[in-house]
């Protein structure tokens, strides 16, 4: 990273933000509104709430420098710190590029050999992009490789807000950097495993070490 090049930014007048009404606004009692049930392909599994606890949680503050891919850099930092599983809250930052996904559910088609999926092609936000809030959970794949899962809210150079699942390919940190508060579990592992109920591979908490 010795060839740090600051991108040249053209500050063209921003287009007026397009204001669209929120989907549904109505006055209701703020308690207990039932949402719809979603029928997944597989049988429901138990317990419905999987909980693993630990008495140990280490905390780190990380400043992610300009020019790097957020995911590549955090993976290196976590690996160097021996941090296997945990959660990250971001306190701020600016990106030159963010690619992200929103959900479209495609059910499985076993006859065609197609698994269910929720993400299509990514959306690129126009930089510079200011981070509003983001959360990242990290753990291991089924094969033991590091896996980072991040959702973020951010505002682009035109003032439009965006939110979704960040692609781990093209999230490039701008000159201002990105700041992260990292919480590392002592005796808990997030392990991605295939979930037969939904047919997706998702993080499951597991007890390790003294808690196992």
């Amino acid at each position: 990273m010795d060839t740090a090049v600051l991108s040249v930014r053209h500050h063209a007048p921003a287009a007026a933000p397009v204001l669209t009404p929120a989907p549904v606004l109505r006055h209701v009692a703020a308690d207990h509104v039932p949402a719809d049930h979603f029928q997944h392909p597989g049988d429901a599994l138990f317990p419905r709430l999987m909980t693993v606890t630990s008495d140990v949680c280490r905390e780190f503050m990380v400043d992610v420098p300009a020019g790097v891919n957020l995911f590549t850099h955090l993976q290196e930092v976590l690996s160097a710190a021996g941090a296997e599983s945990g959660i990250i809250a971001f306190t701020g930052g600016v990106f030159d590029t963010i690619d992200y996904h929103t959900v479209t559910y495609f059910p499985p088609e076993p006859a065609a050999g197609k698994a269910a999926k929720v993400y299509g092609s990514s959306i690129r936000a126009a930089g510079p992009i200011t981070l509003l809030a983001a959360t990242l959970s990290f753990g291991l794949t089924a094969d033991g490789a590091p896996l980072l899962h991040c959702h973020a809210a951010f505002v682009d150079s035109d003032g439009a807000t965006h939110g979704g699942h960040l692609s781990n390919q093209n999230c490039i940190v701008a000159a201002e950097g990105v700041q992260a508060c990292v919480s590392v579990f002592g005796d808990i592992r997030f392990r991605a495993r295939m979930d037969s109920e939904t047919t997706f591979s998702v993080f499951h908490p597991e007890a390790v070490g003294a808690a196992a």
Partner: protein
Amino acid sequence: MNAVAESHVEQGQYGRVFAVRVRPNEDLVESLRTLAATQGLRRAVIKGAVGSLIDGNLAFGPAATATKVHIPGPGVEILSINGDIRVGEDGQANVRVQGTLGGLDGKVYAGTFVPGGNLAFITMEVVVQEWVPSAA
């Protein structure tokens, strides 16, 4: 002279950390109430959550006249949450959770999570840490 309201200040430290997977069709706020009841939590803070909802239901404003925002899914993404759990003398858990959601349209919505209105779609990873007051 006007009376000055006094803050309640409590010294303590963070205790046990809980990593939770919430399975599909389970509600975020109800799951936190269940966590408090089954783990004997009196006070806790929510450190974060990543996951998706069937639909999002947020609210803002005073409880009696709250405005509700319905974000249609399935697949509304939880972008950030913060909040706490406080169990009262009556044993009832008061769970307050605020945050931001990303709609299928990629827009950002914010507010308080309505109990019973935010069911997990595929999964939610939620991390909670206990608050342990120092002995008085």
